[in-house]
Each structure stands twice: as C-alpha cells, then as structure tokens.
C-alpha cells in the first residue's frame, strides 16, 4: 500500500482542518500548565497549511516542505516549531519520490521523533507530544501496517495520554509546574490525538 502526492495533500488538508477545529480545547488545556496558546498556535498553523495545501504538487515531499514553511511562520511557540521540524524532516526523507509506502511509516515516525528530541533537547518520558508519537510508532511496529493504520494510531494516542496522565511534565513551560502537572493531560499529547482525528467508530 502506498500514498500518492495527491493523497498526502488531502490528508494534510484534513489534519489542518482538525487543528483549527480543536483550537478552543487546546488553548484551555495549555492555560492550565503553560501560556494558553497551544490552540491558537495550531489554528494559525492549520490556516497557513490549508492555504498551502490548495496547490497541487508533484511529490509528497513538496507538500511536507510547504507545511514546514507554513508552521515555521505561524508562531513562535514550541508546538509550531516542532511541527515545522517534523514536516521538514519527513520532506527531506522522502525527497524525489512520487509516493510514500505505508510500510515505511514506522521508520519515518522514528526519524521525525529523533529529530524532534534533538531539536527540543527533550527525552522520551518527559510527557510531551513526542511520547505520543513514540507510542504510535511502537504500536504500528507491533501490529504491522494494515489499512486500519488510522485506528491503530488513534488507539495508541489515547492510551499514551492515559499512561502519562499521572506523571509530571519534565520539559517546556509545564516543567515550571511539575507537581501541578501530575494528573493533568499534557496539552501537546492531546494535540497529537486531535490532529489524527476521531476513530472511525466515533
């Protein structure tokens, strides 16, 4: 199974729409532990991505690069930059190819997450969006690539939030309130879930 440039464009467009739609919820979550701008950041990223995704491009890589540019313009907040880094990383990984193979997704997520850990100087277990990505990667790796990639990712993202809720935040603004963060959902982890979108059964 593989994804064409056009399929990637449509998928990114839908992600963008979901980012915009979850703005209020994510602002509220970030307000508890950070500066309350996570929703605004995703909204701005989403808007710029939607505009960028109206153009049809030859390769998935071109679309990812355009999204990277969009996110690097959107905001100075962490999540926007992390998205920009993620998109830029995958754009580089896939450069020159006209489609993406589903079986490579696990490797891409791994590469992206390594880039993000290095850029953000954080570690797995710090209770961030990157723990969600890692959970998704691990789950896909364990269960194998299938047509229900989306379902697998969704379940993994839900479980990650639950698994980390009781732990303290160890990086970012929320680290300032590490004690307070125990028992609360990390806003960035919830953002990952929202970007993936609802389970098909929901």
């Amino acid at each position: 199974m593989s994804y064409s440039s056009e399929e990637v464009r449509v998928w990114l467009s839908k992600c963008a729409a979901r980012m915009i739609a979850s703005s209020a919820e994510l602002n509220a979550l970030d307000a508890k532990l950070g500066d309350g701008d996570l929703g605004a950041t995703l909204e701005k990223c989403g808007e710029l991505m939607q505009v960028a995704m109206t153009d049809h491009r030859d390769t998935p890589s071109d679309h990812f690069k355009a999204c990277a540019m969009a996110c690097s313009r959107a905001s100075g907040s962490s999540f926007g930059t992390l998205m920009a880094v993620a998109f830029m990383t995958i754009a580089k990984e896939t450069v020159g190819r006209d489609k993406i193979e589903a079986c490579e997704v696990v490797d891409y997520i791994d590469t992206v997450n390594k880039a993000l850990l290095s850029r953000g100087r954080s570690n797995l277990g710090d209770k961030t969006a990157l723990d969600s990505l890692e959970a998704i990667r691990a789950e896909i790796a364990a269960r194998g690539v299938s047509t229900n990639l989306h379902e697998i990712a969704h379940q993994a993202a839900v479980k990650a939030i639950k698994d980390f809720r009781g732990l303290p935040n160890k990086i970012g603004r929320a680290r300032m309130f590490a004690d307070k963060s125990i028992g609360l959902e990390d806003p960035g982890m919830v953002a990952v879930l929202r970007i993936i979108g609802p389970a098909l059964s929901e």
Partner: protein
Amino acid sequence: MKKLFNNPNDYADETLEGMCLAFPNHYARSGETGRVITRQGVGEQGKVGIVTGGGSGHLPVFAGYCGSGMIDACAVGNVFAGPSVADCMDAIKAANGGAGVLRLYGNYGGDRMNFDMAGEMLELEGIETTTVLTADDVASAGPEEAEKRRGVAGMVYAFKIAGAAAKAGANLAEVTAIAQKAADSCRTIGVALTPCSVPEVGKPTFEIGEDEIEMGMGIHGEPGIWRGALASADEIAQEMTERVATELDLQAGDRVSVLVNSLGATPHEELFILYRVVARFLAEQNVSIVTPLVGRFATSMEMTGASISMFKLDNELEGFLNAPTDCPFWSPA
C-alpha cells in the same frame, strides 16, 4: 487588567509600529510579518551581524537594543512568547553582511529551538551563524547547572559588548568569543512584588499575597527561590547583592558595572535606594563600580520588582561597554 491597548492580538505589532514611527532614523520593521526590527544601516557589508529575539513585553529588551554598535536585527514574538522560526530567519538574513551572524539571546527553550532551526535552514543558504546564549539569572538553577539558567537583564551587557566588537571590525569567531565572555562575566537576580498581565490572557501572570515578595522570580513570572514577607529595601538588596557577588568571585581591585533594573512599575526612586546597598557592599570589598546603569533595561511590562546585575570587567570589556552607540534606549538612567 488595566492597560492601554486596543485589540490584545495587536499589542506586539502596534508597539513595533509606534516604536518605528517615533524613531524612524533608528528602527525599521522588516521581514514577511513585520516582526523583525532592524537598525538603521543594517546589513553593512563586511561587518559581523548580530541578531537577537524573544517575546514582546520586555522593552527595551529586545527590539529596543537595535542600533549601531548594538544589535543589528531582532525577531519579535507576541507578549512573553518566542519569535517564529520564519522571523528568526528573516532577522538573520537582514543582519547578514557576508561576514556571518551571531545569534545572541536569552536561554529559553522555545527561543533556542527556533533560532537553532532558523540557523540550520540558513546554513543551506550559505549564511554562517554562531550562537551565544545569555544565562545570567542565578536564581534559575545552581552554579553546577549554569547552562540551564535563564537569560534576564544582564543580556544587555552582552548586546553592548558584542555590538561594539562587531562595529570595531572583529570577525565572527572574535565577536562570538567576546559575547560569550560577556555572558560569562555577568550575574543577575530579580525580586518580584506584583505581577503583570499579558493582554492576550487578560489576567495577572501569577498570584502573590499583599505583603509577599518572591526572590529570584523570572521575567515571565517563573518561580524563584523563596516567597516571603516584604522586607526593607536594604535587607532585600543585601541578599540580592550577596547572591550575585558570590558567584563572580570578586577580588579587591576588581572593576564591575552594576545594573539596577526595574521590572516596570518600580520607580527610579526605589532603584536608587537599592543602589546604595550595592555600592556600599562593593566599596567594602574595594571593588570599584564603572559605568553603572540604573533604570528600566529589561522589563515585564507593569510588573513591580527589580533586578540587580553585576558585570565583571576587564580592559577589553570596559572599552566595548563605553564605546559609543546611537541606540535611543542606551542611556545610563
């Protein structure tokens, strides 16, 4: 929240608009979003460029320190939020005169991430960049974890020194080295009495009792060392002075510049009351004060509080500290 602004989302942009209208011979907006401030004459061929950046709400930090012999370009975020990667890139491009660009800014995770990424992306375009982080806040981590410390008011010394060195013709490695020396020679601690409000948020950044102060609080309200009863100015200043001086290992005969900085609302009167204590302390140790700065250099809008910085000088640093600059905000008081 009692503040003078229009739409909260326009706070940063309208600030920059007014600043450039007031001082058109000093500042200009540039970049795709207008969120880059450049100094008059930016991009001078052959001169090492210096960029900084950070959130709005700290004037004169950051954008106010653009000027000849200071910063070349500054990327500006929303209030207390970092500048975007794209704005960091635009600032670096604007500052580039072909001799490389130093990224010189406060040690905050988000800003670091954005400036690093901007630098990496521009290296592909052949712009050579280096980084010096200021991390002068002794309250934000112990000396053994100094690399985790936040950059606060002391960064203005690094701006001044690096800017003067670049203006004097130093190359990128030299400017980077002296900026690092400046960053390493400075220590700061703050004390907060009352919070400020971020316009987009609409409520105070933290809560604090009517008679309470927080020693060591950061310029965005980051937690400090202790919270306790408001004491006399002399007691507070004495503790701050000692905490700052200890780390600089001052010897009789040393020369330091002292910066007594208001976080915003604390008036000049009270800065001078604090200054007495620092002056007395250093005089007792036979350390002399050169080029003191007393005023508002790194603020948190209308926060009440102050910070005390010491900047240990050698001949090179002292020369650059006193070199001329045309920055409207560079004034001793």
